[in-house]
């Protein structure tokens, strides 16, 4: 792809990525979105803001995260070299903390005292509750009732951190409905409250802000891979729900034309069954939660309920930048079924001594596929976006282990 095309694809003013992105929200939120965009753009060029964020990365969340050469796992991936970017080792156990610390600093900058957040797997909720405790902010987390059950451990963590967790009983009782509830809270309390959105979806400026705060993953990993191997990786892989960990690791590689960018979506029981959350592989362009992107929807534009064994990927939308990278052919997106993900999950546990989040296991399953396609000469960089402690119960049930 031509360089100028890559650099131009993001419209700085309206938050469009080609035909995707933008703002589809009640007018009541426009002032707050403008304020947020302004705060972000000022912060980006403020050395003090960046110094404070870097300090937090270094002394609070534990950055830079390390790179692990997964030699035993590689044997199952056609012998390809598998490099794991260890976001699971961050404080709170996933990449979510990167964005949360950035937005918490923005919240302070805007003089707001209350944050609200949505969560699926609970990782973003835990990260938000953590940042709220650190900065002395009030925190309310909206979580689908179905997710509060399958991620009970994270609900307890959020409460221990002082956050209020509101189970959402509308609709499919999952992440999609948690976002609806958070938006309604925001419309009502926008003057005092920042909506700390956890993924690269939602109205402008969220896809840009979250991407900018997650880019650090790819910036670090690119240097680390170059230093370790002396060359760029052949492919970069990440799981995609809303797409924040994926865009974080993809973005710094976009202009490296030789590097394939591969997003692994939740194929659930298989796309053909209709029970999946593979929005790009199995959806169509539409509008959801304030942005235009790929959406799982029916002929009337009604959002269709998604399915995935992983609560964090169980979302019928996807970030608009991913939609555009897909259409441009710069990134490719493939579905991974529940069973494929759980196989890769178990394989990483036993071959490397690392229990990944089930979300992340989708990227690992992709590594098995791509590794076998490319063979042992290839180097694959995988974003190990989160750890699996929260998933022990789900995994034990899946594998029939007595608890």
């Amino acid at each position, binding site marked *: 792809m031509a360089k100028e095309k890559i650099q131009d694809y993001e419209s700085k003013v309206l938050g469009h990525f080609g035909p995707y992105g933008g703002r589809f929200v009640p007018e009541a939120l426009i002032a707050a979105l403008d304020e947020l965009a302004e705060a972000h753009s000022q912060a980006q060029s403020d050395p003090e803001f960046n110094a404070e964020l870097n300090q937090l990365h270094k002394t609070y969340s534990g950055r830079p995260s390390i790179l692990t050469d997964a030699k035993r796992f590689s044997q199952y991936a056609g012998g390809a070299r598998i490099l794991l970017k260890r976001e699971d080792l961050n404080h709170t156990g996933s990449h979510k903390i990167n964005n949360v610390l950035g937005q918490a600093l923005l919240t302070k900058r805007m003089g707001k005292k209350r944050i609200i957040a949505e969560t699926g797997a609970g990782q973003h909720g835990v990260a938000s509750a953590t940042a709220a405790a650190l900065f002395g902010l009030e925190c309310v987390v909206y979580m689908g009732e179905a997710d509060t059950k399958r991620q009970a451990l994270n609900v307890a963590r959020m409460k221990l951190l002082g956050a209020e967790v509101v189970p959402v009983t509308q*609709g499919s009782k999952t992440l999609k409905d948690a976002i609806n509830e958070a938006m309604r809270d925001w*419309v009502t*309390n926008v003057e005092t409250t920042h909506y700390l959105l956890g993924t690269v979806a939602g109205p402008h400026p969220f896809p840009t802000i979250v991407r900018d705060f997650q880019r650090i993953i790819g910036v670090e990993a690119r240097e680390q891979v170059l230093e370790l191997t002396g060359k760029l990786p052949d492919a970069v892989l990440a799981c995609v729900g809303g797409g924040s960990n994926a865009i974080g690791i993809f973005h710094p590689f976009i202009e490296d034309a030789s590097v394939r960018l591969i997003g692994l979506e939740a194929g659930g029981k298989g796309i053909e069954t209709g029970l999946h959350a593979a929005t790009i592989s199995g959806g169509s362009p539409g509008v959801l939660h304030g942005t235009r992107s790929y959406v799982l929807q029916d002929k009337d534009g009604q959002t269709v309920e998604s399915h995935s064994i992983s609560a964090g990927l169980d979302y019928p939308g996807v970030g608009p930048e991913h939609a555009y990278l897909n259409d441009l052919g710069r990134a490719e997106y493939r579905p991974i079924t529940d069973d494929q993900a759980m196989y890769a999950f178990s394989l990483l546990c036993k071959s490397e001594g690392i229990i990944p989040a089930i979300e992340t296991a989708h990227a690992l399953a992709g590594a098995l596929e791509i590794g076998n396609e490319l063979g042992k000469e290839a180097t694959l960089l995988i974003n190990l976006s989160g750890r699996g402690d929260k998933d022990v119960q789900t995994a034990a049930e899946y594998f029939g282990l007595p608890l």
Partner: protein
Amino acid sequence: MSTPLEKLFTEAKTENRALLIGYLPAGFPTQKKAKKIIKAMVSGGVDAIEIGYPYSDPVMDGPVIQAASDEAIKNGAGVAEVFELLQTSVELGVPSVIMSYWSPIEKYGATEFAREVAKRGGSGVITPDLTFEESDRWRLESTQNSLNRIYVVAPSSTKDRLSKVANECTGFVYAASLMGVTGTRSLVSANAKQLVERIRSVSNTPIAVGLGVSNKEQAKEVAVFADGVIVGSAFIKVVQEFGAGRTGLKKVKQLAESLSEGVRSARKI
């Protein structure tokens, strides 16, 4: 050429009164019952009707309309029911518009949607989550089909923004009386009055106030300063409580009569 809705606002102005606008989601609780409810609303004195397009993710709506939309969708309501109910309403002789989130319109096709609304005799479309910036296509389609383009403005809108959005509206400007989602509220008018005054300073288009109005007293208060009073959740609550049989329909008509009295008596000395 003016739409039936615009003509009605002009008439009401000469009568020195505000309009009562009633909202109902298509297919709620079933399409057959929805037709009867609309009829009861109109015979009770509702001047204009908003047909809601029941949508899976209504972020502007509170629990009452969410529940009603869910029920309608479960009972099979889709685009066909929306257009059919619009036509039913038009045939009762009241100016009628559709209120829809953008997703269903985009999925149907903005061109086709605008054409169909016009074909069924609708006056326009209220688009609660379509922002000014994303409106190029809709501006074109609504103009070509002589439809009113109704946007929702809020107390948080800056003066500059208010002016931009209000001047984009035809038919009326939908003023959200408070920061929040749809639903009945005990207090409405202070914020609403201020917002209406702010809109008047930048636009000559009629202004209807929505969000929170549920009874005669509130309707009367708002009708003093607004050109239209929009009531949705209160009608739905009646149906949720009393059903849409003989009792429910009677209660709907009574609520419409009472609200209508409020609206019509607001500016009498």
